[in-house]
């Protein structure tokens, strides 16, 4: 299956365009974190004042902490629950599967304000004070559907017989799950987790109506600004830098290590 050079050129060209499109506004956000004035459309000169302003803004810094904390917990819980449920659903009777998936779609479909007020009414009627816990529960609630939606298509492609065969050969269900099913759907689980994390990270309306007193996430900070504060651009730049560093550590270092091991193996051989 050798590819023609022109196709490779075309495909990489296309991917470069897509990435440019996706990163263009990010560059813009980063650029304006160094702007001298408050303007979002006119670059008047280089300055680090918004980084300084960010460092002195305890509400803004606290908002990073809440955003990350909530996103990490919500992603962890919703990935585990979503994966287990999706696998269970794929083996369920069709009527149950359809019903659950239909209800599962509701949070994706409902406008945030409806989900938010619905949850707030739920907490009020259960006599639960809004807090960090209610905020996390709400995030788990709207994250799980995204995980399930991402994993289900992959499960539909799976060959049922493989898991059955594993069970027939004496594997217990747990082994069939972890040794047979999970390895096959692993990329979908990862994608689901990433989407869940992004949804949680960027949510404003639902967070606003379910968070307890004194809890603000980054989105709440951004939406409530009566006056635009480019400190938020500085904060976003910080996020981009940190995540890029993590990406490099996760992806590049193993690659280098692999190359090294290959080289030593070659030497030894």
């Amino acid at each position, binding site marked *: 299956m050798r590819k023609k050079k022109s196709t490779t050129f075309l495909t990489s060209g*296309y*991917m470069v365009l*897509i*990435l440019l*499109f*996706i990163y*263009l*506004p*990010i560059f*813009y*956000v980063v650029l*304006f974190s160094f702007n001298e004035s408050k303007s*979002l*459309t006119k670059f008047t000169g280089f300055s680090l004042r918004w980084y300084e302003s960010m460092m002195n803004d305890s509400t803004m810094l606290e908002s990073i902490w809440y955003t990350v904390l909530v996103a990490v917990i919500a992603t962890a819980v919703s990935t585990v629950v979503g994966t*287990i*449920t999706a*696998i269970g*659903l794929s*083996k*369920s*009777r069709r009527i*149950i599967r359809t019903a659950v998936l*239909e209800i599962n*779609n*509701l949070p*994706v*479909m*409902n*406008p*945030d*304000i409806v*989900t938010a*007020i619905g*949850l707030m*009414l*739920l907490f009020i009627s259960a006599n639960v004070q809004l807090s960090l816990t209610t905020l996390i529960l709400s995030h788990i*609630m709207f994250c799980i559907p995204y995980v399930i*939606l991402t994993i*289900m*298509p992959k499960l*539909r*492609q799976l060959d049922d017989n493989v898991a059955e065969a594993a069970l027939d050969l004496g594997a217990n*269900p747990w082994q069939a799950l972890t040794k047979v099913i999970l390895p096959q759907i692993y*990329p979908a689980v990862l*994608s689901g987790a*990433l*989407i869940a*994390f*992004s949804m949680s990270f*960027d949510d*404003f309306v639902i967070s606003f109506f379910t968070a307890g007193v004194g809890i603000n996430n*980054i*989105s709440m900070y951004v939406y409530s600004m009566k006056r635009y504060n480019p400190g*938020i651009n500085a904060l*976003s730049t910080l*996020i*981009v830098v940190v*995540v890029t560093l993590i*990406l490099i550590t996760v*992806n590049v270092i193993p690659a280098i290590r692999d190359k090294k091991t290959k080289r030593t193996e070659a030497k030894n051989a």
Partner: protein
Amino acid sequence: MKSFFRMTYPYILWIAVFIVAPMVMIALYALTRSGNSMLTFQFTLENFAKFLSDPTFMRVLWTSLRIALLTTVFCILIGYPAALFISNMSERKQTMMVLLLTLPMWINMLLKTYAWRGILLNFDLESETKVFIGMVYDFLPYMIIQIHTSISKMDRNLLIASYDLGANKWKTFLKVTLPLSVPGIISGITLVFLPAVSSFVIPKLLGGGDYVLIGNLIEIYFLQAGDWNFGSAISLIMALIIIASMYLTRRMDRNGQEA
């Protein structure tokens, strides 16, 4: 496989509390008259009648559906080739690409939309074009990731078998890859179309204020007008219409798979 089936129990319990119960309360609002307290329900269908009888509301709903539909179509057209190309990369590169696509989603949507506003100021475009650039931008990563997930780790033997049987690239794509990716496209549509119908911040900011959309309307009724009953009714009508259209899509999917 009974033991696997039991794995759904916790979530069924969860959705009963966290999805169904709040929705029942919203439905109660939609079916009652505004102004009365929770204790003295007075059931009515007038909220629904009000929506259906006013052409303005129907127009707003139609515009929202049209924008969401076109956004979804653009996302599929642009996203499918991207997903396909990614799935042909090495496994490590694939993970890297998926991460690269998700990273921008962690930057606040409002901030990115302000950025687009600034960027697009330099171009003389129709406001509708600007709206679609913003909408496709926001939803494209979801579509690519969904389609990619469904075609990554696809059984390579199928492709090789197809080539062995003398099928050319196009034929292989149409007969093997495309059908396999249909579930991914469907969940991509779900993740793009459903939220797109009720999203309104991007069209508002990029469309020069020329767009009143259904999500906007619902928020106006819940907050500015303080009329939760009518706001709830609009969201229910919207949900019913979307569910009906998703049902049709799914039937088409089933028919397509059977064919």
